[in-house]
């Protein structure tokens, strides 16, 4: 009980200093601003990227239905539509023929687009809608814009990295004022100190992840999953934050050091996105790979608990291993 009060006291002290420290405020506000930026300046990626061409005389209910799932472009004639389809980017046409619709494609489109158009057509004929459709219908995947999900995911990992920087800055402050020795001769255990010093970075990062996702329109996302993955992936940056804070003498050095975690993060994202399934295993060592993968599934609404738990377990397991290696150095540095 007393320990919790002391942990909270350390958090309160850190928050007070943070409110005076413009550097920290910038660190915390940056991701939120970036979320606003993504939302404002890239409205296109917020929409579905699947493009469907319809004729001007397409029935209103059908057009409205398609528009719910795809970016719709209208054309005056079949010839005009075909000219558009012949252009380099991917667009499928839907033209009425008899009772149903004919799907018009150029032929070099990816199979996804064709399947998507077919499914959309089938769904329409079945009288389905997004609201009463089952998960299997939604899970054909493109209901949530994949590019936006990727940007949001990168933003989350960036915020996770910044939480490490926040911690690092807090430790640098204690070091440059040499106040750790004063805390060490107070009845505060080293564990309470470590937890207390992690709280500001941890809580503010969780808060900015939530705010950023709300700004980006993910209010319906599975929050428990997001928070679980967020928390577990922060553990590693905390360790990096402590180590970097302890080995740096000033703010700039600490920030530079934590930024180095950007490398494995970027590598993990690239690996997940670019490597074929056959080579994905080469990224299994990276906790950020698992975090990115979990977030990707969660943000595109394809996640299930077993998979998320596996990813979270991998993140924590790898972080724990690193923690066990690093903790003697952290403890030594703090005393």
């Amino acid at each position, binding site marked *: 009980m007393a320990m919790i009060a002391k942990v909270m006291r350390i958090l309160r*002290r850190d928050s007070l200093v943070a409110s005076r420290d413009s550097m920290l405020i910038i660190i915390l506000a940056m991701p939120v601003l970036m979320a606003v930026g993504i939302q404002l300046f890239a409205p296109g990626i917020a929409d579905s990227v699947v493009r469907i061409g319809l004729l001007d005389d397409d029935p209103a209910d059908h057009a409205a239905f398609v528009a719910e799932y795809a970016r719709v472009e209208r054309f005056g004639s079949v010839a005009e539509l075909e000219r558009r389809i012949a252009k380099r980017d991917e667009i499928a046409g839907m033209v009425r023929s008899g009772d149903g619709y004919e799907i018009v494609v150029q032929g070099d489109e990816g199979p996804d687009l064709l399947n998507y158009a077919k499914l959309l057509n089938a769904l329409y004929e079945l009288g389905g809608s997004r609201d009463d459709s089952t998960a299997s219908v939604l899970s054909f995947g493109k209901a949530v814009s994949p590019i936006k999900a990727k940007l949001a995911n990168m933003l989350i990992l960036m915020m996770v990295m910044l939480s490490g920087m926040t911690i690092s800055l807090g430790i640098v402050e204690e070091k*440059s*004022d*040499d106040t750790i020795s*004063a805390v060490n001769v107070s009845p505060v255990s080293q564990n309470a100190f470590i937890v207390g010093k992690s709280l500001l970075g941890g809580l503010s990062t969780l808060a900015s992840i939530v705010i950023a996702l709300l700004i980006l329109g993910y209010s319906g996302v599975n929050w428990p999953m997001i928070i679980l993955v967020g928390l577990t992936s922060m553990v590693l940056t905390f360790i990096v934050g402590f180590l970097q804070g302890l080995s740096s003498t000033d703010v700039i050095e600490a920030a530079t050091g934590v930024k180095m975690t950007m490398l494995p993060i970027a590598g993990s994202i690239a690996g997940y996105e670019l490597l074929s399934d056959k080579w994905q295993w080469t990224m299994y060592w990276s906790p950020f790979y698992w975090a990115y993968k979990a977030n990707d599934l969660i943000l595109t609404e394809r996640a299930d608990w077993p998979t998320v738990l596996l990813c979270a377990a991998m993140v924590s397991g790898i972080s724990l291993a690193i923690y066990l290696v690093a903790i003697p150095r952290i403890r030594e540095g703090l005393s």
Partner: protein
Amino acid sequence: MVSVRNLSHSYGNDGRLAVDDVSFDIGKGETFGFLGPSGAGKSTTQGVLTGLLRLQKGEVTVAGYDLRTVRKERFNKIGVSFEQANVYSKLTALENLRFYADLFDAPTRDPHELLELVGLAGRENDRAGSFSKGMKHRLAFARSMLNYPELWFLDEPTTGLDPAIAAVIKGVIKAEQAKGTTTFLTTHNMYIADELCDRVAFIVDGSIKLVDTPRNLKQRYGKKLVEVEYLRDDGSIAKETLRTVDEGDRERLAGIVRSRDIVTMHSKEATLEEIFIQITGRGLD
């Protein structure tokens, strides 16, 4: 209150001992001084006793706690003032004390009263970062008294302070002594040791050469100095201080008395510093 047996401490692996087989006891209510030149091992000893440095060798009991088992709760009874003032620059004087006060599980003193005591009244709401070195030192000193410590560690409490402020700090220490606070004080200032300490340990190169009360030391060694002024052949006045316990000095004194015109001659009470030099063969700075 404190019991130290055969304490040694080394910073590196080179076998050089910063503290070398030191033993002493501090009784309840006593002020025990570590007097020695720079690098003697005073701060190192305080570091081990306060748990900031790991106990490597020896047996140490502090405020009833054996240092081999680490119990953080003991700091509810202990106050520590450091050689280098260490306070949060981004917090005000008051915030510094309030934060630290909240870390104790024991009653704490009113921060305002403490700031007043060390002459920082009126500066409560200024950031410690804007303080001079002496002001920071006083703030850290005030912090060390927050928890009504039964055992108080003071590393060079007045070093670097101007005389007026040093006098204030000495006054505060004396007031605490009167309340029965046990104090471990390190200094290389013999006046401080003389004025504030019940007993003094002379420490040089990591070892204690002698422990006694300042009064005993002065009685034992004090009257044994003779200061003599005499005329040289060229008419100028020469001045020598000679120890009556030293065979060579006695011969020399006899020679001067026999063959010179004495201007003045009197026995003199030695200062702790002179005694320190007699015993350790080293000066204090």
